């Protein structure tokens, strides 16, 4: 028998047709599976993103101040009338722009200071303000012997706005005047700035600075407040300690922006050691009576009085 086998169903069909048709089907199946898989992944990704953001952001209650002005009051040394004037001046400024004041009592930190000079009180005070206002973003420490002279200027538009800060930042200048070999970073961007400071003719000025809430602030303040620095007998205590850490530790320098002195730290004409163009001129935001508390010949109350009267007259006429 020649053809004992039953003939194949499709004798004429090319031998590969079956497999190719199969692969066509397969391809379709694969395509469907791929689309389905992709869709599932997308949904999963979106959902995870959704849940991540929903749990990741901490709720900030409305009306939280964006900026806190930090002042350290030594009620033992200064008369109450003097302190009340300072408080009045700062409350007025804060009210105009929706900021908050944080008045710290130096006596609260005395045990922590451990016999170090009282000017060290600035460091725990700022840390304390941060702990008490965990949702505020910026903290403006201003020495007690200073007045807001131009309260219409808000710090946001005057200094903290991105483009404004970018134009004010001094790049590639010595951090400690006049000729430190350590210079501020020339490629620093305003969004990377966590600490805004000024220099006078001798040091980084620890009497007026703005620091952003966050890891960097804790890091800087804790280092600055290290017991070994407090015990070291720096001639200018915390100011020299600050000079030291900024120059020796690039991770601190990396987020520091220097701005011209008169932006937040104009010195009165009686103060020595103002930097180039560092003396107060009409229209500046603040005036500081730098050194009035350490120089025995000067009196902070007397120096402040004319400026205080000028300020109260101006704010009444407005």
């Amino acid at each position: 028998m020649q053809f004992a086998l039953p003939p194949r169903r499709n004798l004429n069909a090319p031998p590969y047709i079956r497999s190719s048709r199969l692969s066509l089907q397969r391809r379709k199946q694969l395509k469907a599976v791929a689309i389905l898989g992709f869709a599932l992944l997308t949904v999963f990704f979106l959902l995870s993103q959704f849940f991540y953001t929903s749990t990741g952001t901490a709720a900030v209650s409305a009306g939280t101040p964006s900026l806190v002005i930090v002042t350290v009051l030594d009620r033992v040394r200064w008369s109450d009338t003097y302190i009340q004037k300072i408080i009045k001046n700062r409350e007025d400024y804060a009210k105009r722009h929706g900021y908050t004041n944080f008045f710290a009592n130096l006596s609260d930190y005395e045990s922590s200071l451990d016999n170090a000079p009282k000017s060290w009180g600035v460091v725990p005070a700022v840390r304390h303000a941060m702990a008490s206002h965990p949702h505020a973003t910026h903290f403006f420490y201003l020495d007690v012997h200073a007045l807001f002279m131009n309260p219409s200027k808000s710090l946001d538009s005057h200094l903290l706005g991105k483009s404004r800060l970018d134009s004010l930042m001094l790049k590639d200048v010595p951090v400690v005047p006049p000729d430190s070999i350590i210079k501020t970073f020339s490629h620093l961007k305003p969004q990377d700035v966590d600490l805004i400071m000024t220099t006078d003719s001798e040091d980084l000025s620890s009497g007026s600075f703005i620091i952003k809430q966050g890891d960097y602030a804790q890091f800087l303040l804790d280092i600055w407040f290290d017991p070994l620095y407090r015990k070291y007998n720096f001639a200018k205590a915390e100011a020299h300690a600050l000079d030291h850490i900024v120059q020796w530790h690039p991770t601190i320098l990396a987020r520091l922006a220097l701005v011209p002195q008169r932006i937040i730290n104009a010195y009165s004409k009686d103060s020595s050691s103002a930097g180039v163009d560092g003396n107060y001129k009409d229209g500046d935001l603040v005036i500081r009576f730098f050194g009035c508390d350490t120089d025995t010949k000067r009196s902070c109350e007397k120096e402040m009085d004319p400026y205080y009267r000028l300020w109260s007259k101006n704010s009444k006429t407005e």
Partner: protein
Amino acid sequence: MSLSRSPSPHPGGGWSSPGLTPGSGTSTPHSGLLSPNPLGSSGISWAAAKAKSDEVRGYPSFSTRNNGFFSRSKRQLSATLPTFRVTSRSPNGYIDKDEFGRQPFSPGKSWRPFGFGKTMLRRRRLRLFLVLAVVLVGYIFFWSSLMERYRRSSFGGGHKFVIILESNIEGGVMELKGAREWAVERNSVKNKQMYASEWGYELEIVNMLAKKRYSHEWRESWEKVDIIRETMRKHPNAEWFWWVDLNTWIMEYSYSLQDHIFNRLDEIAYRDINVYNPLNITHPPTGPYLDEVSRSAEGDGDPSSINFILSQDCSGFSLGSFLMRRSVWTDRLLDVWWDPVMYEQKHMEWEHKEQDALEYLYTNEPWIRSHVAFLPQRYINSYPPGACGDGNDPNIHYAESGKDFMVNLAGCNYGRDCWSELWEYRELSNVINRTWRDTMREKLEDLYDRFWKHT
């Protein structure tokens, strides 16, 4: 046609009924033009062909030709290829189409599903067998290197870990190295290499050669800091950096860092140093000006904020084995770890240099505490019995029953013999890390010995 005699059953060939086996001799081997499945009932056709060729050749013994596993499976294999369906030919050059359809096993029309199914079954079985064989061969020869590849790749996660091993301590300057020091170094490096390649980690062997620079600036041993920074730059994709001293031995190659530590970090690590506090550090910090996280004993309690993992021995922090995570926090710590003003005041007291400096910073600066976690010592840093304190504390010292990960021969340079201790632990770890083959062989040898000794 009839045969002169019934063919003997051939090994592996099955039985073919002699009466139905054609023997015309007229059918040519190449005539099976349209047989779609010449090997459909291959056993039978094979037997028939066998018988035929036996007859033709005139000697009746069975031949071993084409009898092997491969040739048989080759036939099966080739049958699955479409081309062979058209111009199919029997591999041994013999086919008789007449025999099809006349087998007692496949009477009439019903042969097709039956034969087809059977073939399919066989093909499948064969395929399965082949796949299994390939898998087995692959497993035996390529598995370990494949796993290593995978673990090293971005999927495996091994590239996230870098082991930093110090070597050549004070090499060439402070002391001459003898044969024992070389042996310690060679073996310890080998040990870390084996572990790193097992899990696809990067191993960075750093040369601790005494550098003029550091002695000049009075900061020997702070070069650790520079080395870690440099290693972080060199491996930009790695996340965790594990510093290991030279006088250490990884006992358990089977522990990955992920499984052993990081996947259960929140269970095994403690941030509250009061859990074990040989230095009596006041914890948590009490400053009234501090924020809540800094004042809490557990930091923020989130294991992802841990950037530095170390262990404590009986006298305080131990930096023989510690882990650092790449982070801004770590950069800052590495930056402030050495400071000239602190060093000037403390260098007479800080006998253990960078270790004491770290203890100091931890004690005095709250920003550090909330990102440091401690592991009970035996997770990453077991000491040999007797190395610390009275030498009996089970939380500090290695125990074989505890399957400790790594042993650190801390202090072996001071009056002990590093090489002999290292050698002991090397031998012990070889026993611990026997493969199942070694275990099997050992058992067999054991049996063999017992058998021959008893008889």
